[in-house]
């Protein structure tokens, strides 16, 4: 059964009683977009069922409906063969459904124990919180599922992997038989992912049903029994893991064969534009994020930084852009030191930055497209007389030019950026950062959450910048993107560049390097981590 069954799948294939979850013809529309369009979703008892799709395909919406966080517009939900009336999380919990959210639902200032029992706290007489019983019950759960945790630790002090473990224990404590895991590996290190999969298999052996949401196909193939694929709010395929391939899932997810090849001429690198020497920096939570990073980017070259998210890429870009301080090391732009200058100074020296958080950091969403197109350059001689009085006509003319040149689909230059699609919002940033004619372009996840058309456009533009002589530093979580755009690839792992590779390096080798393998000294770096 390698071909996808047509949607909607016939429910006759499985006997209804053996289904843990049976969602029928679920509809949910937001203003302007149908997130779930008559979705049918079946999960058998005791299986690990993967729900896959691109960002925005409607996976999380569907699961939030199942968990009662979002009201559906239409459709029925059956849990264990019975029609379920889910009005809120409380109803879902009562039905034995638990959800581990992508963004953890944990309270940093409370203890692990308090977090786990929240909502079902054991009490003694007079509503007094019974800490002793909490310890005892969590201890039991921990032992049964091999999930060691200290209930008295403060949640905020735990590493991400343990926080997720607490989330799982929290769900189990509520007596969940059906666990929804929303993109659980996005924040994990490879080791933590391995551990998580071990735990999930243990839970399955213990009779639990698991819904595993992901867009990482390798993981899906590794962990799941069956797969449901969503695209643009619809279910486009039901697959059996054992008999499918990565290519098949990818084709269903994207709707055509993905071949993110970018036509580009060989690079013609010039002198070194950006040099980084022994850079170290701390993360927001004040743990070392960069542990001595060194590399060079030449003019007319794209250096791609490959790595699992959370290995220091974000911090590296922030240090280079001037929004995070380096604790040691140097950054040189054209041979001149720019380490720890302000964001404004770095910008004015010719470093452009496409930030990874488009809506939060790249745009003022309530500003017009035109205003966003001058963000960061509002005091430049081009747009402001004496750096103070804005020249509105110049700004408007500039905006019109960039809107045409970068094909930004906006009704008018005065339209608010908020009203545009993700792809067009990203084009505003790309246009602004490229049009300032930088020496160095920092591009962080430049196509995340953007539609295919915009992806191709942005890719072409990045290559054009390179051909124009700009030094491009590209960070992306998408290995395909890194491989198709980069002239050289630097692999980042746990705050270090572990290897420089050629663009043609096979994906397998990069994958190995990204997860700390593939090098003679890999073992050493694991210990250091």
């Amino acid at each position, binding site marked *: 059964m390698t071909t996808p069954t047509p949607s909607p799948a016939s429910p006759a294939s499985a006997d209804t009683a053996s289904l843990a979850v049976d969602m029928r013809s679920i509809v949910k529309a937001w203003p302007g977009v149908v997130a779930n369009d008559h979705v049918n979703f079946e999960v058998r008892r005791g299986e690990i069922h993967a729900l896959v799709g691109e960002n925005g395909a409607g996976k999380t919406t569907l699961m939030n409906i199942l968990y009662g966080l979002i009201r559906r517009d239409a459709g029925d939900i059956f849990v264990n063969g019975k029609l379920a009336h889910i009005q809120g999380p409380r109803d879902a919990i009562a039905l034995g459904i638990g959800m581990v959210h992508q963004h953890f639902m944990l309270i940093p200032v409370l203890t692990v124990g308090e977090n786990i029992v929240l909502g079902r706290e054991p009490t003694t007489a007079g509503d007094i919180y019974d800490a002793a019983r909490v310890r005892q019950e969590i201890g039991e759960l921990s032992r049964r599922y091999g999930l060691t945790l200290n209930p008295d630790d403060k949640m905020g002090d735990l590493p991400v992997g343990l926080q997720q473990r607490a989330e799982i224990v929290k769900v189990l404590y509520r007596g969940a038989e059906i666990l929804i895991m929303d993109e659980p590996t996005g924040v994990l290190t490879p080791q933590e992912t391995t551990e998580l999969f071990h735990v999930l298999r243990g839970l399955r052996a213990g009779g639990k049903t698991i819904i595993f949401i992901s867009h990482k196909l390798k993981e899906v193939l590794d962990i799941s029994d069956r797969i449901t694929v969503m695209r643009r709010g619809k279910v486009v395929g039901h697959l059996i893991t054992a008999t499918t391939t990565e290519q098949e899932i990818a084709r269903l997810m994207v709707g055509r064969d993905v071949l993110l090849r970018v036509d580009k001429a060989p690079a013609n690198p010039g002198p070194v534009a950006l040099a980084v020497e022994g850079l170290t920096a701390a993360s927001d939570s004040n743990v070392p994020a960069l542990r001595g990073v060194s590399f060079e980017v030449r003019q007319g070259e794209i250096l791609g930084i490959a790595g699992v998210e959370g290995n220091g890429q974000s911090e590296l870009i922030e240090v280079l852009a001037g929004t995070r301080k380096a604790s040691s090391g140097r950054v040189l732009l054209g041979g001149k030191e720019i380490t720890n200058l302000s964001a404004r100074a770095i910008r004015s020296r010719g470093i452009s930055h496409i930030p990874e958080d488009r809506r939060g950091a790249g745009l*003022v969403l309530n500003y017009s497209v035109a205003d966003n197109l001058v963000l960061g350059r509002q005091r430049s001689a081009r747009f402001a007389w004496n750096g103070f009085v804005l020249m509105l006509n110049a700004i408007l003319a500039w905006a019109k030019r960039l809107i045409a040149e970068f094909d930004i689909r906006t009704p008018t230059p005065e339209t608010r950026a908020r009203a545009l699609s993700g792809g067009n919002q990203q084009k505003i940033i790309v246009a602004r950062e490229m049009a300032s004619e930088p020496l160095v372009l920092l591009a962080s996840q430049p196509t995340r959450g953007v539609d295919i058309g915009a992806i191709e456009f942005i890719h072409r533009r990045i290559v054009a910048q390179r051909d124009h002589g700009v030094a491009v530093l590209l960070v992306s979580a998408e290995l395909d993107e890194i491989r198709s755009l980069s002239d050289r690839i630097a692999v980042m792992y746990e705050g270090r560049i572990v290897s420089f590779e050629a663009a043609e390096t096979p994906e397998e080798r990069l994958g190995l390097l990204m997860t700390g393998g593939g090098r003679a000294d890999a073992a050493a770096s694991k210990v250091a981590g």
Partner: protein
Amino acid sequence: MATPSAPTTERTASADTPTPLSRVIAYLRPMGTPLGSVLFAFVVGAIVVVATRGNALLAYESLACGGFGIFCQNGENTALQLSNTLVFTTPLILTGLAVAVAFRAGLFNIGAEGQLVMGAIAAAVVGIKLGTWPALILLPSVLIAGTLAGAAYGGLAGVLKAVTGAHEVVTTIMLNYVALWASRYLIIGGPLQAPGAFNASPPVAAGAQLPRLVPLNNNLLFGLPQSVFTAYTGIFVSLFGAAIYFFIMRRTALGYEITAVGQSQRAARYAGISVRRTIVVTMLISGAFAGLAGAVVLSGLSHSLVDTYFQDTTGFDAIAVSLLGQNTAIGVVLAAILFGALHAGGQVMEADAQISHNLVFVLEALVLFSLAANFLRTFKFRLPAFGRSPTQPAELEAQDVVVGAADEPG
């Protein structure tokens, strides 16, 4: 999400060729929420009056009479009422701008009253101590002194916020009390007390006084001696202030940056804008407007520093003025006229309808509730988010409100 750009383009095909009607609607739309809020306030206010056995119709008629000289029952003089309204409106425009500029940066300046008092103190000191200077120099000095003192006082809250993170709401409340007690201290047994007065300073020199709109004598004007028309040229200072505000917010890189910080500190920081510096500069400007208000009232109306402890509410009314005016220059002026008229009308209401002028504060609070809660929901209107979560971008106004046009070029 996939590509919702198609419908967007479609919807705006007509917007590219605006009809005269659609233009008028576009101009009137931002007034929907404020006008609705005022209506809401008057309806609920009427219920309060009736519930306490008052005559709501009579109350509102006398309010209108006192504010605009219309619907008068007892032969009040229209010109006099308008003059009184102008007296209240003059400083309200400036304090309204003070609060508005802070709102633009996502800051809540509850301290306009304190900054106003500090401005008045500085203006009084200059106007009294340097009274021998020629008017041509003295009068500007008085106004500038008030502006600078207010700026310094507002800037203090800005520095506390930028450097130590102390929330401006709490610090400005505390600074209000400090200023009010300081002014009391100065004029009751302190260095500025006038000989023989209980709680007032001596008047400032004649050259330090803003002239009245009509000369102070007993010639008849609209059937009344000219001396009763207390409206003064401070209104021009206020309108000039509104023009400055308009210019800063709409035409300068500074205004662009202030609004950017208010909308999204993160985006501002990434764009190389110093958030701390912008906060301090905003509070300096905010305090400057409020301080100028204090100087204007002192120079044009009271002439000496008097005890205003909670009798004067100009700095607090400013919050309602700026919110009702949706933080735009024109809106603030219009809202200041409305509240000026309400305060002036309150006095007539007290005389004609025997209803305390404090009803005006009830109406003001109802306007605030209605604006903040957006009971009408016709238009989306949001205040800056004062939370600390950087993931929730602040929204000064939502798309529908064209107020944002003030930030848009062209």
